[in-house]
């Protein structure tokens, strides 16, 4: 370690060039060790189990909240679904507001922040550990999560800051502060500060390191193994060019390509599923059996449930509060309309896209089961299911897709990198909003955050999947701890908005424009 520091002082680039791959590999290892040991306590705090059980309290926290919101708003995610679609189509948009942020744009931008590696790699992790049954719990969590998203995005728009120059800032830090003040509750500001701190960590974790890590995994899978920090430096340079250098053209290209990649991904998955139409019934059988028995996975039914809930929450971010930041820029007089629109997000992200990934992995037979008992075989560590080629994470999804379409791993590699990139851009913005909430707006404070953000891209690409995914999950869920706690106190405000809007919609006061 001492020697390494000395080498750094003497000029790291020189010694690197001389030592070659061996030194490079050890950089990755050093980064990994320091990272794992410095974040371990935080991870174990968030993922500690209920005493005497193996059930992490945080998973329960998210699901209970989503269930409470679902019941409190009387299954709003199903009641309002058709109206949500009408809003996105612009049926209720005033033509005089053309040129302002539309419901569609707010939804698309929020989606490009959530659709990404969670849907491709995250699902593979869930199915790889929790078996097909994890899919069932993932879908259930996605459906319930729609109510959480509805709640937080309504509040995000209602309590956003609109500045004199016409720009807006919104998100949990604003509704926690202003909403608590309005209801005469104490500690709103304290919650807002806590949320901001966790949001910054979440931006650096799930919104950054996990993305960089899996994008590198995908690249080295296609190009052959090479040290992670090299990918990290390249990604960091591009992200730096966009968020610091203001190279909007790169972001704009990505924002246009990403939706097409998403559609291509879903269509390909559908084709693979249809090609194996005879196995669809069997696959759903596996999903239902696995959901309630575990089919031999580590932890049984509870193991499948935890994995499903965890990955769903990580993928659609319902209850996390991040989407409230993205959705709050929409142009509308009715905050509740953005709540309606946002509930489509977990549906598209989890119920549609994640389920596609899971079905493709199951249907293409990537998971190894004992032919006699039908139970899945575990690998040496007894924690993950054996796969045909020993793949896990994004490599598992890649193997599943390319088993049907040779060469799809290249398409997927491009998709993963673009998804990773657009997610990083989105989260750099979420993190920045939290950062400026804490430290004030201003060029210098903004640059400091953006530089830190880019450094973490390198760390994320260099570290191993295990510690990165643990930290990413922990940071994102820590946001949910604060956000959901606040939401419980603010739901009456949302209910009042909802009732008022629905009665005006019924009386015809709120009219369609087309």
């Amino acid at each position: 370690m001492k020697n390494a520091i000395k080498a750094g002082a003497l000029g790291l680039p020189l010694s690197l060039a001389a030592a070659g791959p061996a030194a490079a590999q050890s950089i990755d290892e050093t980064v990994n060790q320091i990272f794992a040991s410095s974040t371990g306590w935080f991870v174990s705090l968030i993922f500690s189990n209920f005493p005497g059980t193996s059930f992490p309290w945080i998973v329960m926290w998210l699901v209970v909240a989503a269930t409470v919101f679902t019941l409190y708003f009387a299954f709003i995610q199903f009641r309002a679904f058709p109206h949500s679609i009408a809003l996105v189509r612009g049926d209720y948009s005033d033509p005089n507001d053309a040129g302002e942020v539309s419901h569609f744009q707010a939804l698309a931008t929020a989606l490009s922040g959530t659709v990404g590696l969670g849907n491709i790699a995250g699902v593979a992790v869930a199915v790889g550990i929790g078996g097909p049954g994890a899919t069932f719990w993932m879908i259930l969590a996605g459906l319930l999560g729609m109510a959480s998203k509805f709640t937080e995005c309504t509040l995000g728009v209602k309590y956003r800051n609109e500045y004199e120059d016409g720009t807006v800032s919104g998100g949990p830090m604003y509704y926690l502060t202003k909403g608590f003040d309005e209801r005469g509750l104490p500690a709103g500001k304290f919650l807002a500060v806590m949320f901001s701190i966790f949001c910054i960590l979440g931006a650096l974790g799930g919104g950054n390191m996990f993305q960089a890590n899996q994008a590198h995994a995908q690249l080295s899978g296609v190009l052959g193994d090479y040290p992670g920090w090299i990918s990290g430096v390249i990604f960091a340079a591009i992200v730096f060019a966009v968020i610091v250098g203001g190279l909007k053209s790169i972001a704009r290209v990505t924002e246009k390509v990403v939706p097409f990649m998403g559609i291509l991904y879903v269509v390909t998955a559908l084709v693979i599923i249809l090609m194996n139409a005879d196995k669809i019934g069997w696959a759903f059988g596996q999903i239902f059996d696995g959901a309630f028995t575990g089919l031999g996975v580590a932890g049984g039914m509870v193991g499948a449930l935890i994995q499903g809930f965890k990955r769903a929450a990580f993928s659609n971010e319902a209850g996390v509060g991040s989407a409230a930041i993205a959705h709050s820029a929409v142009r509308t007089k009715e905050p509740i309309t953005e709540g309606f629109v946002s509930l489509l997000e977990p549906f598209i992200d989890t119920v549609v896209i994640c389920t596609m990934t899971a079905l493709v992995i199951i249907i293409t037979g990537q998971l190894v089961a004992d032919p006699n008992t039908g139970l899945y075989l575990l690998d040496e560590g007894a924690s993950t299911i054996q796969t045909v080629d020993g793949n896990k994470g994004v490599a598992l999804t890649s193997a599943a897709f390319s088993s049907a379409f040779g060469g799809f791993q290249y398409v997927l590699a491009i998709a993963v990198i673009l998804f990773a990139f657009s997610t990083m851009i989105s989260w750099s913005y979420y993190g920045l909003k939290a950062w400026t909430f804490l430290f004030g707006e201003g060029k210098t404070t903004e640059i400091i955050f953006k530089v830190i953000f880019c450094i973490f891209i390198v760390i994320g690409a260099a570290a191993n999947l295990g510690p990165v995914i643990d930290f990413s999950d922990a940071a994102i869920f820590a946001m949910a701890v604060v956000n959901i706690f606040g939401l419980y106190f603010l739901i009456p405000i949302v209910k009042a908005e909802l009732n008022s809007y629905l009665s005006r919609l019924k009386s015809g006061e709120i009219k369609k424009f087309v």
Partner: protein
Amino acid sequence: MSEKIVVGYDDSEASKNALAFAVDLAKARGCAVVVAHVLEWSPYSFLTPEELAERHARRKEELERAEEALLAPVRSELSAAGVEVETTSRYGHIAETLATIATETGAKQLIVGRTGQSGLSSRIFGSVAGTLAQVSTVPVTIVP
């Protein structure tokens, strides 16, 4: 109320020709001219979170710029020439929005310039003049 002619105007050479043509016509027939500036915009385009947050401000800037740099000079020029003139700037699909403006103002005809692109881009994306020929509810004059 005098008859109205809508002109699509965006400061390009072609649109200046269209405006000049419209002014001649208006003088001859005693019509009023509606100078319409349409900013290309789709509610289904994709923006980054930062662009979302700044959108309202950008929109205000764009409309102000259109008013100052494009429409105000045209208004004073036409008024000085003794032509009755009104101006409007809108967001939307250019051809469709021009057609809407023509309908809304009750104009008798629509005059636009054309960019003269006959190449690949207009084959793929179509041209404003070409689309107007399809969607307009009033007669359209295309000024080369």
